[in-house]
């Protein structure tokens, strides 16, 4: 049994075709942002072990299927498994953990030209432009998308796998 706010949030997220922000949810269901936060926590807990899952990118929330049920859903939708080359995966890893980041920064870390891999990742909508850095040349900033979270079965960027290698000062935090 859910609280009324949680049920309302659940119903809205179910019909929503795109992620809904907490503020928008509060306005729609007639609750405070804090109540919505509690409702979202309640839902996340209720979905444990179910076929659904609550995903969020920053403050935008979406209802998705749980990764454990991917086989059945992919069978129903007839979706092919996504294939990404090792080179593209490296570029994606840099962008995912360092976003927002410029192409030059990605190239500095990987030590190779990343034009092609960034193009490929953009095409597959795994990354997107996130404005421009306020620096000479105003280079484009890149970040990951909702598709990225979905394709990798992540409920949020917090679920990015932690590297086992000690990171120290070398690897900066993934600032939003």
């Amino acid at each position, binding site marked *: 049994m859910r609280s009324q706010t949680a049920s309302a949030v659940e119903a809205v997220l*179910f*019909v929503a*075709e795109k992620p809904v922000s907490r503020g928008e949810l509060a306005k729609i269901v007639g609750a405070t942002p804090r109540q919505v936060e509690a409702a979202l926590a309640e839902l996340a807990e209720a979905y444990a072990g179910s076929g659904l*899952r609550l*995903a969020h990118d920053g403050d935008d929330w*979406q*209802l*998705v*299927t*749980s*990764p*454990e049920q*991917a*086989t059945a*859903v*992919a069978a129903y*939708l007839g*979706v092919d*498994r*996504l*294939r*990404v080359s*090792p*080179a593209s*995966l*490296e570029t*994606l*890893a*840099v962008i*995912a*953990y360092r976003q927002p980041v410029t*192409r030059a920064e990605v190239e500095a*870390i*990987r*030590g*190779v*030209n990343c*034009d*092609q*891999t960034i*193009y490929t990742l953009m095409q597959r909508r795994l990354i997107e432009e996130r404005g421009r850095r306020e620096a000479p040349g105003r280079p484009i900033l890149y970040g990951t998308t*909702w598709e990225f*979270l*979905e*394709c*990798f*079965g*992540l*409920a949020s960027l917090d679920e*990015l*796998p932690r*590297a*086992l*290698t000690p*990171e120290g000062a*070398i*690897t900066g935090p993934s600032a939003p």
Partner: protein
Amino acid sequence: MLASEGPRVTVEGFDGPLELLLELVEEKKLDILTVRLGDLADAYLARVRGLAALPADEVASFLALASRLVLLKARSLLPALEPLAPEDEGESEEELRARLMEYAVVRERAASLGQRLRSGERAFHREGGTPVDLPPRGGEVGALAAAWTRVLALAARQRQEDMVAPGERYSVEERTAEIETIVTERGAVAFSELLGPAPTLGWAVVTFIALLDLYRRVVVDLEQSGLFADILIRRRERGGALADR
């Protein structure tokens, strides 16, 4: 921005000089934190020798790193070289080590992302599901039930007031179906009864054409006892399929 859209050329499976260097470290089971990178110069050069056939700019970056490694090696062998202007030489061994370590982390992360991808454990959102022209919501089932009751009450009253011929709007097809139903249930019916007490011209025509259609399809027989007498419509033994309840 998208200068090189063609497939990337990689060197013997290596996407860049850092990757090749890291591969050598791992291959030789060395620790990035302690290994003297210059010691890898020979092995690195050996690999780079096979790159001659590749595009110049691709090979160049591998050679640039190779030259760094050779210099690091030389320096470790000849400590006297140390005073050489370090600023001109680009990154120091420690800087190169830091880059290599950072790259190692990226590789590890890329690998775990790849693992996730291969496991296929992905999520799906609902695609659309809500059409552009949204259907109405919030219907009241009570009002619907009330409407049904009202219709039933009206229909009952109508029946009591003796069925009036239901207007001219019937199509021949529907009239045909109707007559076929009546004939099936009762075996026979008089034309006058089908017309009703006060038929309009249109109603009579539709009914008559429907009868002709039924006769043509050998569903009914038509009998008339005399000139201008009532026509009796009788069902044939092997009539058409009759699905009407």
